């Protein structure tokens, strides 16, 4: 029976009854990276250097070398990325069970609230209200916070800094615990530069999504795009990081299967 599911899945893909949606920002030098205070080590922005372009450096081919951080662009966070997950088994990009990297997506739309308040925090109440319409979040599903933040194509607006720091939306500390303890989600995804809110440093504990998710061996997705093209439930997402030995994460090509 499972075999026929796969066969019909392939047929539906070929006939476009099932569409593949790209949830990924383009990797380019202009795409803003996460920026830490200057005293700390920094995540490299995406950089690309041409090796040859059908020229004396290589007459018949074009290729580049690129560099970036593990957390540049649309990317995956592994549990080892955070201090709370450092000692868990199978916590790095090469040891995470790949079964976990394909899963159902629950898309919670907060775009209205966020357009009024960039510092908006998702709470348990919001989740419960969402469930009352779309049903209970299934175990080992991904919860994706749709904010339409990815539509901010100007890097300055995307980062949204002022003198008090960054102002981007994210989950409150209590909803993260709820999602883990009461719903057993596999991970949390955001359109903004971090899974935690821009002012997450001031929550208790600081950066609660990273702290709790990774502390519980769960994962994070950041800089997602096109969440507005996904149904609230029913999409299946693929979000496999590169198999970097002892990696804390990597840029990914995040894809979703949705009914046409």
């Amino acid at each position, binding site marked *: 029976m499972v075999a026929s599911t796969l066969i019909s899945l392939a047929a539906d893909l070929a006939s476009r009854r099932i569409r593949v949606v790209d949830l990924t920002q383009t990797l380019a*030098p*202009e795409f*803003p990276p996460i*920026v830490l205070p200057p005293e700390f*080590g*920094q995540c490299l*922005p995406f*950089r*690309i*250097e*041409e090796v040859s372009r059908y020229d004396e450096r290589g007459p018949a081919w074009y290729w580049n070398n690129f560099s970036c951080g593990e957390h540049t662009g649309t990317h995956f966070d592994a549990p080892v990325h955070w201090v709370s997950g450092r000692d868990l088994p199978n916590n790095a990009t090469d040891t995470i069970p790949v079964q976990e990297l394909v899963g159902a997506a629950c898309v919670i739309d907060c775009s209205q609230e966020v357009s009024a308040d960039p510092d908006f925090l998702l709470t348990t109440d919001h989740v419960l209200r969402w469930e009352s319409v779309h049903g209970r979040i299934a175990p080992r599903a991904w919860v994706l916070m749709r904010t339409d933040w990815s539509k901010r194509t100007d*890097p*300055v607006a*995307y*980062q*949204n*800094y*002022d*003198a008090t720091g960054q102002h981007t939306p994210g989950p409150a500390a209590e909803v993260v615990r709820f999602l883990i303890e009461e719903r057993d989600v596999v991970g949390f995804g955001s359109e903004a530069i971090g899974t935690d809110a821009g002012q997450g440093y001031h929550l208790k504990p600081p950066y609660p999504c990273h702290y709790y998710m990774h502390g519980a061996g769960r994962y994070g997705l950041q800089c997602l795009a096109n969440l507005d093209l996904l149904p609230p439930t029913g999409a299946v997402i693929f979000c496999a990081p590169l198999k970097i030995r002892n990696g804390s994460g990597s840029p990914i090509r995040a894809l979703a299967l949705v009914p046409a």
Partner: protein
Amino acid sequence: MIPPLTRPKRKNPMLRTRQALLPPRARSRAALGLTAAAALGRFELQVCSDCDAVQYPPREACHRCLSDRLRWRGQTGLGELLSTTTVHHSHDPFFRERVPWKLGMVRLDVGPTLVVHLHSGCAPPPSRVRVDARLDKSGQGVLLAFPIDEVPNMADDRQLREMTCDPKFRKVLVTDGKTSVGQAVARAVIDAGADLVWVGYAEPWKLVPGLAELGALPQVTLLPLDLSDSRSVKQTAAEIGGKVDILINTAEVHRTEGIASRNGVETARSEMDVNYFGLLRLAQEFGPAMRSRGADGQSSATAWVNLLSIYALCNYPAHGTFSASKAAALSLSQCLRAEMRQGGVRVINVFPGPIDDEWNQALPPPKLSAGSLAKAVIKALKDGVEDVYPGDVAQEWLARWQDSPKVLEREVSL
């Protein structure tokens, strides 16, 4: 009377751009001592340590006592203008297209007779003049006679302008306007009469004080420029590179780490990526156009200024990786200087001591203010020198380094 410089007319785009020709470059090794001093803005001649005779032209042995102990010493340059001429015909291609050209013959008070370029403010002979050394368009030391007293519009003398890099009526790119130094340099260049100043900034989401106000000045155009991003440099060069007359590279990453103080190479790498590779990217993208415009009318491409550091000469271990990145930039700038010479574009290296900014917070005074550094850059452009050591710390560092690099290394790492 020297007519003041006026704003040049717009360039006629139908006409071929005049190629940069260079005055004769060949010099003997002894004569290069004059060039080396002129690069620092000094007029020096050989003086015999045994009999004090002053030598000119430069040579291998004292013309009076044959001693080979000739030392380069600073000169006042005071002397008598014996005779002048205006050259109307020259076999040399550079001068041929610049005649009439005034020359003088000066008898220095200290003895030698000099053939010099003549500043048009000098009174006819016999008269007192002051001889000074400058770098000509080939980057070689030459002598000029100046009037003893200032005359109006001194800097606008047509012949002197062939040897200087005055910002007046020129277009300038300051690569990073987010730092206090970058902003001070941009403002100083405007005060010196630049028509247009592009000010680069990276990481637009990182707000810094002063940038918006700078951008509001009528001469200033802010533009995104990230020296760690080849594409950004290429794009900016494509947009404005053909117009840049003076490029002032103020962009730098400065951290305060040695080797043992920091785990991993990430910090050092980011210093190298801007301080060294950033210079390389800029040079590849902006160099060719500037080189081709070295003789492009009155507002020709004329200078490339690098903000280095005294630590480029001798590593300061507390800022060890930063020092190494500046040393790499220094070496590369010498390569750039050789390549830009074909276009008659001067490469100027500035070696400040610690600047009064956040990364030098822990260092005790004296520290260089951004304003003083900017003043030194303007002076270097107006004098057309190559190597600038602004401030007391830099001057002392230079003196110690010239005396003995190894002793300085020890002094700095004690």
